C-alpha cells in the first residue's frame, strides 16, 4: 500500500468508519440529526453535513484529529478528499497567525509533501463567531508523482486555537475538485459549539 493513505488507513485499528450520514438515529453513533438537518456531534458540536458520499471518520484514541469526512474521488490513486475538525492542531501559540506558521512546519510531516509546501492564499475569515485565519496551500511530490491541495481554517474556542482542514490528493497531473472545497467551507462556516470546552470548564468551575 502506498504511504500517503496512511493518515487514514494506517489508523484502521483506531478509526471507526461509520456508514454515511444517511443513517441517523442509532444510539451507538456519536452523532444525531437535528430537525433542521444539521448534525449534532456528541451533544457538543453542530454543523451542516456534507453529501452522503462523504463518510464519517473518527479517531477513537491517540489520533491527530477528532472527526471528519472522507470521500474517495474518481480517478487514479491517490484521488481522495478528506476534511476534519481538530481540537489540538499542531503548534502551541494561541495567536492565530503564529499558530498558522507553527502548524505548517509540521502539517503532513509524515509525507514528503511538507518539504515543498507552498502557501497559495492567506486571509482573515469569520469562523466560530470570531476572527479566524484561512490558509490554502499546495505541495507536489515529483518522485511519487502526487500532489495535494489543502485549506486550513484556524479559529478560537475560548483561549485555544482549533482548526478545520481539508486535504485533496491527486496524481501530479490530476485536476482538483473545487466542489470539495465548497462543501468544506459550508462545514466550517456552519460549525458551532453547543457547550463549553473541557478547558473553558476547567478554568471557570471552582
Amino acid at each position, binding site marked *: 500500500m502506498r504511504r500517503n493513505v496512511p493518515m487514514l488507513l494506517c489508523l484502521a485499528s483506531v478509526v471507526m468508519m461509520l456508514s454515511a450520514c444517511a443513517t441517523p438515529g442509532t444510539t451507538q453513533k456519536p452523532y444525531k440529526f437535528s430537525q433542521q438537518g444539521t448534525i449534532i456531534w456528541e451533544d457538543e458540536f453542530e454543523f451542516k453535513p456534507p453529501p452522503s458520499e462523504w463518510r464519517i471518520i473518527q479517531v477513537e484514541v491517540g489520533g491527530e484529529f477528532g472527526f471528519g469526512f472522507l470521500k474517495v474521488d474518481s480517478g487514479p490513486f491517490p484521488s481522495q478528499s478528506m476534511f476534519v475538525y481538530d481540537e489540538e492542531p499542531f503548534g*502551541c501559540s494561541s495567536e492565530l497567525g503564529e499558530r498558522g506558521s507553527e502548524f505548517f*512546519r509540521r502539517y503532513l510531516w509524515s509525507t514528503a509533501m511538507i518539504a515543498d509546501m507552498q502557501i497559495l492564499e492567506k486571509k482573515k475569515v469569520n469562523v466560530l463567531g470570531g476572527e479566524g485565519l484561512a490558509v490554502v496551500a499546495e505541495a507536489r511530490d515529483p518522485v511519487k508523482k502526487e500532489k495535494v491541495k489543502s485549506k486550513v481554517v484556524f479559529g478560537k474556542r475560548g483561549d*485555544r486555537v482549533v482548526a478545520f482542514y481539508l486535504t485533496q490528493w491527486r496524481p501530479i497531473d490530476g485536476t482538483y475538485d473545487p466542489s470539495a472545497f465548497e462543501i468544506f467551507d459550508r462545514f466550517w462556516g456552519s460549525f458551532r459549539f453547543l457547550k463549553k470546552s*473541557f478547558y473553558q470548564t476547567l*478554568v471557570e468551575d471552582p
Partner: protein
Amino acid sequence: MEGHQRNLSLYDRFNARVVGVSVDDVTTLKFWAKSLDLTFPLLSNVTGFLGASFGVGPSPEIKGFPVFSRRTVIIDTKGIIRYAKDGSPDFKDILLFLKKMNKEGGKP
C-alpha cells in the same frame, strides 16, 4: 510535548511545573525543543537512571532499539509520587488531577 507546551498557563494556574526527561543527548534535545518551540526544561539522562527510578524501562514493543517507554509522573512538594500513568499523556486527566491537588493544597 507540544501538548504540555499548550497547557503551560494551565499548569501555572494549578501551581505545577513540567519537566521532560529523555535518554537523548543534550544537543538532540536542544534541536528538538527548538523545532517544537518548547520553553519548559528538558533533562537529558542518557544512562536512563532517572527514568528507571520511576520504573521506566526500554519499551517492550520495540526490540533492539534504546527506545524507552513513556510515563507521566506527578510529584507533590513533599516528593511523593501522586500520579503515574504509562503511554501518551492524557492531558485532560493530568489537568483534572492537578486541579484537584491544587484545591486540596497538595501542590505538585
